[in-house]
């Protein structure tokens, strides 16, 4: 099993619980859609899985490593090597070119494969944009760069938080197609947070988060 989320609890400062004993598993190569209303804790669960934040109870085990004992540096190493992230806001690095953004995560993880990055750029239609800066790209193009950056280190788990939320319908379909085909090609697992039931329907499994519980 690649990911095991076991009775995870998380409260925000002030004591308001967001996640109550949430449990979830994900196998290698599997895709899972996580849906829920605004404020239901979808993004929080994704952030905990990405080792971006710590949880109050329970355990998350990623590729055999429990996250709760990890310190700041251990969590950073986990983010670098085991997971990749795609955000709704793209969150590219504005000061780097498209080419540099594409290879950035892979190089940080010491897993740069120049051929693979070039193939990714081609598959994502970014080959002609490599020397440009993110601010000069459209939203769809920026999200394709973000997907390329996430896939360049060949992660075992790809976490995506509303990756098409800022895109129109056509761009949204294109981006999702690309992401799913790359995940399938690399054998990565995908945990995708979305509001859209249409998108959720295209993934292997579907989990719904409500009131801090998986239903």
């Amino acid at each position, binding site marked *: 099993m690649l990911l095991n989320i076991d009775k995870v609890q998380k409260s925000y400062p002030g004591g308001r619980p967001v996640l109550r004993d949430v449990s979830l598993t994900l196998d290698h190569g599997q895709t899972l859609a996580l849906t829920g209303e605004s404020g239901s804790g979808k993004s929080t669960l994704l952030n905990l899985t990405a080792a971006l934040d710590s949880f109050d109870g329970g355990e998350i085990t990623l590729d055999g490593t429990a996250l709760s004992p990890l310190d700041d540096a251990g969590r950073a190493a986990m983010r670098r090597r085991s997971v990749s992230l795609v955000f709704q*806001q793209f969150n590219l690095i504005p*000061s780097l070119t498209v080419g*540099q953004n594409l290879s950035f995560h892979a190089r940080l993880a010491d897993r740069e494969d120049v051929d693979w990055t070039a193939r990714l750029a081609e598959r994502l239609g970014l080959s002609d944009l490599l020397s440009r800066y993110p601010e000069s790209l459209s939203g769809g193009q920026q999200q394709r760069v973000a997907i390329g950056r996430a896939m360049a280190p060949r992660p075992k788990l790809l976490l995506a938080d509303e990756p098409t939320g800022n895109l129109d319908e056509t761009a949204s379909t294109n981006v999702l197609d690309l992401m799913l085909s790359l995940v399938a090609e690399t054998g990565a697992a995908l945990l995708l947070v979305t509001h859209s039931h249409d998108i959720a329907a295209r993934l292997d499994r579907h989990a719904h988060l409500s009131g801090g519980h998986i239903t």
Partner: protein
Amino acid sequence: MTRTVIQALVSHWRRHWLQLATLLIGIALATGLWSAVQAINTEARASYQRASDQLALGLFDELRDPTGPISLDRYVVLRRAGWQVAAVLEGPLRISGRTVQVMGVDMVAYPALPAMTQMEQSDTPPDPADVLTAPGRLQAKPDLAALLYAHPNLPPILESDAVPPDLILTDIGVAEILLDKPGQISRLIVLPDQPRDVPPLSEITPELQRIEASTQLNAERLTDSFHLNLTAFGLLSFAVGLFIVHGTVGLAMAQRRAMIRTMRALGVSMRRLVWTITAELALLALIGGTLGLILGFFLAGALLPDVAATLRGLYGAPVDGQINLQPQWALAGLAMALAGTLLASGQALYRLSRMPLLTGAGLQAWRVSGSSHLTTGLIGIGLIVGGFAIGHTIDSLVAGFAMVGGVLTGSALILPYLLSFALSTFQHRAKGPLAQWIWADMQAQLPGLSLALMALLLALAANIGVGTMVSSFRLTFVGWLDQRLTSELYVTATDNQQGQQIAEWLDPQVDAVLPIRSVELTHETGPLFLYGVVDHQAYRDHWPLIASSEGVWDRVLAGEAILVNEQLARRGNLWPGDEVTLREGDTLTISGVYSDYGNPTGQAIVSMPQLDRIAPGADTRRFGIRLSPAAATEMAQALRDRFGLPRQAVVQQAAMKAQSLTIFDKTFVVTSALNVLTLGVAGFAILTSLLTLWTQRLPQIAPVWALGLTRAQLARLEMLRSVLLAALTAVLALPLGLVLAWALLAVINVQAFGWRLPMFLFPMDWAYLFLLTLLAALVAAALPALRLLRLPPADLLRVFANER
């Protein structure tokens, strides 16, 4: 409606109190440093004015003898002919290690002396009989009077605040005794309302020269250059402070764009908004300005004693060591704060006033566009070229400062270009992803930091330039002292007769006795002190000549030629081969020019027989004595014992050098203090820029954190980034500082003081300054880095939140 607008605008400061504090500190620092310099200048000038008023200096025409003192019989001739003139005898007197001026006036003939009038009108007026009859009375300020009380052989002391500092005012008869100048008069004051039908001066005293009141050299004119230098430094500090104001106001405006757009959408006119914001800035300027005035007052109070000592030592200018709060100074300081704040905010206000209603409210709009950068760079190059052109074509001190101002401002304007180029080069050469990101990120941060870095560039260049100038000057000065002070001992006898006895006694015991004799003459360039020298190898070997013709000493000692100091040479454009007229009928060819640092007046050297011919009767009281250095201390004591000379009448070379260097170092205390303060302000500018940029940093840092860097790593990189930018700026500041040093040494000093100095390089000083800069950058970045280190992940996650 205006009240509602004000409430909305003020709410910004409530949320950004640190920004408000930064703005007020920026205004306060700019105003404080400027006001401190102005307070010093105002106080010094007020002191000169008080002294001039009290002693009626520059009020009446004067009669002087170009060859030296006026004899008593000339005075009698004038009085008998009906001329209403008052005799004045002046000279320095050394008491308890302190040199004070003695001014003896003819109290009967010169009743209108304001210092006397004021004293007579006081609650305890002195008895005129006491003042006029032996032993007379000495009038002095209370602090000097306290010193005089320790000498029981002096006449009774009258304390008076009406007398300028470091001056003893007394009757001329008493002054004759104190100064040991019996029957001598320094100058005659031509009183107003002369009787009709007096014979013309040219008939009865043709040897006396009448000097118009308006052409008399006074302390204010002598010290003009010194005060101009201080003003220039004050302006630089003011400009550095305004960089903080500019940066902070710019960011505040950018952060308010959304609020302003909303208010406009709700019906508030742009005109009303601009006026309200202008009024708000004016109010902040007045608050910051008031804080600055308080800071400036205390700073001036701390610096004034050293400045006063310098002005007294270097120019003999009377300056009180205490600062007095003057309303016009406070008003001028507030006006500067107001004008500076509005000037620094002008661009932000202008951009705000032209902001379209439907434009985006993002912070990015605050950044300067590429074309605007190009324009700024071109203006910078224009200023540098224009500055050099002015400096080379116009021969004046103001042109020199215009050149320095143009080069400094122009360089500051092109700094972002140069830094961007350097960062881009480093980025292309960087191999690792982090290194690439750091260089690229620095480049992206540059627009927000460029103003602070410009301030740092100016402060560093000023430090390097002024430091190089002072150190070069000191090195030259020490070498020059070694050359000029060739004798091991310097003796001052109490009178000519004792001088003769000392010379005779010393002659068989030492290598040489070199008399030091001089008279004060008047030259078209100002006062001219003429010295006589005897033929001795010491002069030929050591005298610091900076220009000479062949056989320079042979011709001088043969009475055919004259040496002039650099000040006289530059002021009168007199160089070897030119002729100088000492008085009618006495014209000599210049055979050499010598350096003469620390002396504001003209000086010349002729052979001793020539001096006796031009000005017979010059004092023979001072000697330089050449002997083995090992025997100097013993001989000094022997001289004191044998001739009953006070300790300060026999001075050893080492003591004289030490004293000269102490005066020298004191002269630059104020400069060094302003240097350090300016650098401190620049460091603060970096801190404020980093803090104000903080809000923009999170979206840039958060993705990198999410991709696997720890907050500790990011905090270290934040500090590294600040240090690298400061280091690059420091590297660029070095050539600019050296250009500034050259301008100060070769242009400003020549125009201001009359001497040109050789330039020396001090790499160790630069290395120290470089390390200091890195430390300042590290300290400035420490707070933002600490914030980042302690930043809860939740705050970073907010960057990724979909419902932001």
